[in-house]
């Protein structure tokens, strides 16, 4: 019986280590929209949460921990996050990397550098004016879009509902 408990505890710890794998932000990828677009149109069971933000955007900085917290809560679920930074590429080393390193070790981050905004903003969502922050949450064809600040409860409610959808 004792051994069973021990095995159980050991596996819990191992699981914990597994889900707590840390991301390395020494290099953050700079992409254009053609590289981002596939992430917005996945037809799998996974719920995707894509946040558009920048380090100089105060409401974005304020809500950044909500995504980190949600990533922690749903680390064992079919939920994937992507933080799409719209910082200027020349701020990558000076602002973006230090900021991200200080705030998360769970959230994947890319820098979107694509001046052709008039085309790609509508491809993210036609309802989006282009103002930051903005968050796109979807699973298959179920899509939710938030322009403006988002609360942790908005994120978790949306994920919970999308996860139970058939």
């Amino acid at each position, binding site marked *: 019986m004792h051994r069973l408990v021990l095995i159980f505890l050991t596996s819990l710890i191992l699981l914990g280590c597994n889900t707590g794998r840390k991301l390395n932000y020494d290099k953050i990828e700079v992409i254009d929209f053609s590289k981002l677009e596939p992430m917005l149109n996945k037809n799998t069971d996974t719920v995707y949460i894509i946040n*558009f933000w*920048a380090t*100089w*955007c*105060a*409401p974005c900085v304020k809500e950044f921990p909500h995504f980190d917290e949600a990533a922690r809560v749903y680390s064992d679920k079919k939920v994937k996050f992507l933080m799409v930074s*719209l910082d*200027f590429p020349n701020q990558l080393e000076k602002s973006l990397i230090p900021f991200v390193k200080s705030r998360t070790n769970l959230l994947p981050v890319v820098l979107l550098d694509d*001046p*052709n*905004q*008039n085309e790609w*903003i*509508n491809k993210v969502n036609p*309802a*989006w*004016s*282009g*103002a*930051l*922050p903005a968050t796109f949450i979807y699973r298959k064809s*179920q899509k*939710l*879009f*938030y*322009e*403006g600040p988002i609360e942790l409860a*908005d994120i978790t*409610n*949306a994920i*919970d*509902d*999308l996860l139970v*959808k058939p």
Partner: protein
Amino acid sequence: MKRLFLILMATFLAAGLYAQGLKIGDKAPDFRLKNVDGKMVSLADYPQVKGFIVIFSCNHCPFVKAYEDRIIDLHKKYAPKGFPVVAINSNDPEVVPEDSFDKMVERAQQKNFPFVYLFDEGQKVYPLYGAARTPHVFVLSKKANELFVEYIGTIDDNYKDASAVKEKYVENAVDALLSGKKPAVTETKAVGCSIKVKK
């Protein structure tokens, strides 16, 4: 399920709120706001103009900063032709201290703004126009003393690099109006800073 429905409804409602404001062809409302020189300014104070390049702007936003020199150039080029720039800061300084009236005066002096830079005290004008971000441009034309919306959107197609611009949306729109035509492109989008108001 009920909750998802509520979220969807909330999203639609939010989208509806953003969709309010002016559309192409709508009559544009006038306002009376304080300029950085301390004087109150209305669009009606310009009886001679053919229209306006109204730009919702601010001090703090990096996208505005990237466009500042281009906004100055727009005014220098088009004010003599009858389309002056009117810049409006609708951010609440209690949310963004850098966008206070005093800081606007400072910025206008540093950059020697040739255009009026107005403070939307109480944040009342931006919802009338449906401005959502900075910079957000509304080109207006004047017909029989009424102002009409001809173009809504961004200044050009490259915020980062003025020398790499391929389409100058605002210039094209104003050039078309000056030659008696309608702009070919009437609406564009760009990433910008949200207009900051208290909840």
